[in-house]
């Protein structure tokens, strides 16, 4: 009886495991991994979706498929490592479906590394297309998003030299750009949340193809909800980073305030800007932004007799502060007048001054923003000069 019981149990277990299990067992080789997704404007209301798939067989790896020892190229260049397929479709799911018509493996977005959007599609509006993408279980919220001048499909065809594939190149480009204070870094889930929350608008990196093997960050793209409304150049992007609290650490080269013919290079690390909102009935909202920056002098070429002393540093700091104030104010004015979009996140601060939600909903920040009074104050602490105080002085 005991044996019978055990055998029955084993058979039950095998049935229990075999029947409902295995239904989505998919060998990793039966999957076509989509590494990069490109969205462009297509005909009419449609998009053109580009999928960049990896070709595992051509990846260089140790051992593996037999090949001649010396003859097989060790680098990634000879064989193509990725494959780009574009097709027109109203949304991404339909495009994935149609991909099945030509692909020998099942496409999957689980290893997607970057999402590239063409400028034209961004101007048309992304809300309609990206909303459906969010529904897919394969969707990854931490994928960075970028806007490219021109078409995404052509950007994805670059052959980068340092990285094995364009998707990794672009992802790493954005990440190190963000680290160096050159470009914003927006992830899909953040971008989608700005489309849901009114009064907060996103800024994505703007990239252009520079030759066959490079992409260049040319600034940022400002959005109002899901539509592109304006472009910031590289300098404005850096002011945006400081104002939005996303500046990590980076070098900034400005004209030396004491001698504008010479450049002054500083290494700036910013603390989070402090935003104070004053909202009164009948008056425009007043926002005061104060940013504390720590500056270390890297290059000060303007010739001077004495090494830099504290007084010099003070004067330099004031000069740079004043310049930053002016430039940042110009940017803010531009967003208020030309773009009419609060891309700095002040809307969240304004929301914090309301006590009940209906009041906030009645208050339309998008309308109030162009009228708001925004004052930007920088404070720079410049005490560090690197390893020497002054230029080499001949005796």
């Amino acid at each position: 009886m005991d044996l019978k019981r055990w055998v029955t149990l084993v058979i039950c277990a095998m049935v229990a495991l075999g029947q409902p299990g295995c239904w989505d067992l998919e060998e990793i080789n039966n999957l076509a991994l989509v590494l990069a997704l490109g969205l462009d404007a297509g005909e009419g209301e449609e998009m053109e979706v580009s999928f960049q798939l990896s070709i595992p067989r051509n990846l260089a790896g140790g051992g593996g498929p037999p090949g001649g020892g010396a003859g097989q190229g060790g680098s990634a260049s000879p064989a193509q490592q990725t494959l780009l397929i574009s097709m027109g479709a109203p949304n991404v799911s339909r495009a994935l479906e149609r991909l099945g018509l030509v692909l020998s493996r099942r496409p999957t977005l689980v290893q997607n590394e970057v999402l590239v959007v063409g400028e034209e599609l961004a101007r048309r509006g992304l809300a309609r297309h990206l909303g459906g993408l969010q529904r897919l279980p394969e969707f990854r919220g931490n994928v960075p998003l970028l806007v490219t001048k021109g078409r995404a499909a052509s950007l994805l065809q670059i052959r980068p030299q340092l990285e094995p594939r364009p998707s990794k190149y672009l992802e790493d480009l954005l990440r190190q750009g963000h680290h160096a204070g050159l470009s914003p870094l927006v992830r899909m889930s953040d971008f989608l949340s700005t489309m849901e929350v009114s009064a907060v608008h996103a800024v994505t990196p703007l990239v252009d193809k520079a030759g066959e093997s490079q992409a260049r960050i040319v600034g940022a793209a400002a959005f109002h909800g899901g539509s592109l409304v304006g472009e910031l150049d590289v300098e404005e992007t850096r002011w945006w980073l400081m104002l939005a609290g996303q500046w990590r650490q980076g070098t900034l080269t400005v004209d030396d305030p004491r001698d504008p013919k010479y450049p002054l290079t500083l290494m700036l690390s910013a603390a989070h800007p402090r935003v104070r909102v004053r909202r009164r009935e009948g008056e425009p909202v007043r926002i005061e932004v104060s940013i504390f920056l720590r500056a270390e002098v890297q290059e000060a070429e303007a010739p001077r007799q004495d090494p830099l002393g504290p007084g010099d540093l003070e004067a330099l700091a004031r000069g740079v502060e004043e310049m930053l104030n002016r430039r940042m104010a110009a940017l803010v004015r531009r967003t208020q007048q030309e773009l009419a979009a609060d891309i700095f996140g002040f809307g969240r601060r304004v929301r914090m001054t309301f006590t009940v939600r209906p009041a906030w909903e009645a208050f339309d920040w998008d309308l109030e923003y162009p009228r708001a009074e925004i004052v930007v104050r920088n404070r720079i602490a410049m005490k560090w000069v690197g390893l020497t105080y002054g230029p080499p002085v001949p005796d």
Partner: protein
Amino acid sequence: MPKTWLGKLADILRPAPNRARRSFSLGRRRSYRPPGTQEGGPAPAGTREQPAGLPEGPGDDALWGETVSARLDENLNHLRRLFRLPLNSDIVVREFRVGSSPAVRAALVFIEGLVDKDQLNLAVLQPLMVLARAGRPLPRRRRAQMVADLLLPHNQVKVLEELAPLVEAVLAGNAAMFLDGEARGLVVEVRGFKSRAVEQPTSEVVVRGPKQAFTENLRVNAAMIRRALRCPALVAENWKLGRLTRTDVVLFYVDGLTNPDLVDEMRRRLSTVDTDRVLDSGMLEDLLEDAPALLPTMLATERPDRVATFLADGHVALLVGDSPFALVAPMTFTGFFHSPEDSYLRWPLGTALRLVRLFGIFTSLLLPALYLALVNYHEEMIPTELALAIASAREAVPFPSVVEVFLLEISFELIREAGIRIPSVIGPTIGIVGAVIIGQAAVTASLVSPILVIIVALTALGSFAVPNYCAAMLLRPYRFAFILLAATSGFFGIAAGMYVIALVLCSTKSFGVPYMSPIAPFRGTGPDIVVRGPVYKLHLRPSFLRPLDALAQRPVQRRWDPQLAGEAEGGGGPRGQPERPR
């Protein structure tokens, strides 16, 4: 009403109702009563006879209850028949005369090869035959006692009336002496068979610590334990089990420390052993342990220092015949990844080593399963570079991942089994050949992917990190079960498997002690589970053993330390403090 198929299935699967009385559990300590009192402990130590009523085995014909006859010839004829002489060539019957006046006929019965002939010649035959020549007469009634008292200068002589223990003594390697005219026999302990010298342990080698292991000689093993625990309260009860083998089984415990309930339970289990043969502690382990569990519930160890530590904590130990493995009961899960080296090394190192071992256990159990689950079900969890590397490595392999994993695991098991039986001269060579070259060849031939070779190698290494040989062996089938679960249900299957294992382990008991003590139920008797604390913090014995004396050492140890001086003044409780009831 006829049963549906579901009802019939339920009938088959329903476990049998438990008709036995309440199963044993080591409960609260009862009050201690010294041995020999009416309710109390064991009868005086000695040979335990076979319980009455059991059928006799082939060695027992008409022996039980027989006494020695007063006439030597009768005794010798009886013995010759019993021992199938002269067919049996190694039983020797040496007849001689004791040199008393008048001379007394006597005979010595022993097994050649088991006795030490020099001792026999010099300490038994010589004094009786030669040196007693000018001796006194031996009166009939007290003949044997006088020989034992006055004429035999030997350290162990027993005078016996019954034939059965005399025969057993001869079989064990002693010499039996019969005197004409005396209805009693003598047993002289002249054992001198060859056995292996004390060597290093084969499976529990440590760097820092004693390197002695048990050998195939019960007395030598028992002596090693006695040397470690020099305490008169250490009791070694002798049992004889097995009809054909008559194996000496010695039960060790510390009287006054070990919970008497535990000792009684062990005696109860030993007394129900009724079998032909008990050849090794492994066989006895099967007969004594609780219902078959996932992991062994008694510890088999080769090291006398480990046995001594367990005895001092309140466990009981068994030495089975001439087996070099001692058994310790009860045993919990922690006993299997604790190595004696943890105690001999400094405590941070002991902790680090235990963590490494735990990691090794989990690796050896789960790594192939995790690989399968990741590659087949959860590709999104692999970093992109690794996913592409795995995909490219697998491009040329014709088998699905599951088949690959099974293939490699089975070949590894084959290599392992073959490695045990290969003559030791070429053993290491085959290890290298098997593991490295065949593995490399398989990869080059695109039969398996290189990453899988690494995984299987790590798995094997992890299983060697488990200090206990039996547990490591047992992990192997579970690894296959996990591979199957991962192949059918991904991470969910692995999680379900771990859940089931946790349930089974937590409901296993070993001699009344929950198997996962002291992890679950958690009793904080000192940092010694995963993190090993310093020795001066381990002043409580493990409470799951319910020892009669809970304090192993004074709570504040290093009294010379100025930082502890204040504590030492007021610290420490009286010894023998009973543990708090739970």
